[in-house]
């Protein structure tokens, strides 16, 4: 039986894992390579890492960090952030990423999804979608939720699937960072409208939240703070889910 994936997410600047996207209060949580190694050993099903400050200078160090992480883990690695053209995707895959996550570049230029999936295969193209409710509609947002686009969330999710995305990483900006749980209604809306896998992201604060995330039919559950802070170990989340009858890899 296919297992629900538990995916720690590393927000990275250069080679450090940092907390939050509030650039005013960046807190270093640890060394990215060391944390990646730890998560791989302790039962993470996949690892996600995002370059959250992909400036020209930081990028080189970040790419080196991707290479270093790929060498110390033996689970799949998804890398996102700082992608604007097809070459950026090729570079990341050559650096050891198994999958690449495209967000605002895909919104700006949806053709990039098709080009990337034709060149590298759908299985390694993840489209990250940030969603937010606006005037009673679910919209696609970019720039960490600060800019609301014209795109309707569900229409966009269907479109990225038809363009060849292999997976959707769905973050609700209405719940992200608040630790009150995933955005179940938004996630259910997305999972019921696409046939590709959906990873739920944004809002995990306690164990029950993981279970509620599973109920949205998301096959991957992504979390950052609850793992980085040491509040939960990956295995304790999995044991909890197993007791609830959710298939997990122990």
């Amino acid at each position, binding site marked *: 039986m296919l*297992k629900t994936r538990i995916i720690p997410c590393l927000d990275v600047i250069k080679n450090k894992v940092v907390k939050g996207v509030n650039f005013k209060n960046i807190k270093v949580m640890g060394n990215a390579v060391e944390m990646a190694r730890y998560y791989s050993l302790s039962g993470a099903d996949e690892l996600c890492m995002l370059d959250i400050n992909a400036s020209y200078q930081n990028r080189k160090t970040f790419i080196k960090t991707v290479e270093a992480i790929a060498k110390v883990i*033996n689970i799949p690695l998804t890398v996102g952030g700082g992608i604007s053209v097809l070459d950026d995707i090729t570079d990341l895959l050559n650096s050891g990423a198994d999958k690449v996550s495209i967000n605002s570049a895909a919104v700006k230029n949806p053709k990039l999804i098709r080009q990337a999936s034709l060149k*590298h295969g759908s299985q390694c193209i993840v489209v990250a979608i940030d969603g937010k409710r606006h005037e009673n509609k679910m919209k696609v947002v970019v720039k960490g939720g600060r800019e609301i686009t014209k795109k309707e969330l569900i229409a966009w999710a269907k479109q990225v699937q038809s363009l060849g995305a292999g997976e959707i990483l769905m973050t609700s900006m209405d719940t992200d960072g608040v630790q009150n749980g995933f955005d179940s209604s938004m996630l259910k809306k997305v999972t019921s409208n696409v046939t590709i896998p959906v990873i739920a992201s944004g809002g995990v604060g306690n164990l029950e939240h993981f279970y509620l995330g599973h109920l949205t039919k998301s096959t991957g559950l992504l979390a950052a703070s609850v793992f980085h802070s040491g509040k939960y170990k990956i295995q304790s989340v999995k044991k909890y889910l197993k007791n609830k009858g959710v298939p997990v890899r122990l």
Partner: protein
Amino acid sequence: MRKKVIGLIDGQSGNIGSINKAIKEIIKGRPYQLKIIRGEFDYSLFNKIILPGQGAYATLISNLKKLKIYKPLKKYLENNCSYLGICVGMQILSDQGHEDKTTRGLGIISGEIKKFKSKKLIIPHMGWNSISLNKEDPIITNNLDNKDFYFVHSYIFQNIKKSNVLANTHYGKKFPSIIKKGNIYGVQFHPEKSHKYGLNLIKNYILKS
């Protein structure tokens, strides 16, 4: 003693970094050497060949032809030499693949590659799923039975002889996840991404098969 030579084919179908790293770890301090195959090669120089693949069946076949790997590889396989095909590297052992268009495969293990056929299934089949063994084999000693491995694929090996199936996996329905004919193996999952049990399988293939 002459070292045994393991060939790792770079078919430009996904990165070979993880499998390269896994093989190096396994053969460290042992009488083996690893050679990356990127073009035409003399198949008689290799004791084992591993071909990892991602993406589309037709793309891998055409890459192998372009790189002049296809012919020596086919000869190598027709001589029943030791091979491990991973994911699409397994699928191309079949007679044909039906991904976008129909493409002829290597024709080593009879069967064809078809898409998962269910409207209810989430496709690709992506994530960790368990294998259940059909029969004993050196590369899957009992401790790997029922263990989870990492899969990512939309197509499966069909119309295969039961005697060529070493293990099955269930997703919507049962499909072959490890196949074997003579000295030729194929695994539908990615052992190089499957943590310790994946490493065990690669190790078994290199050292025991």
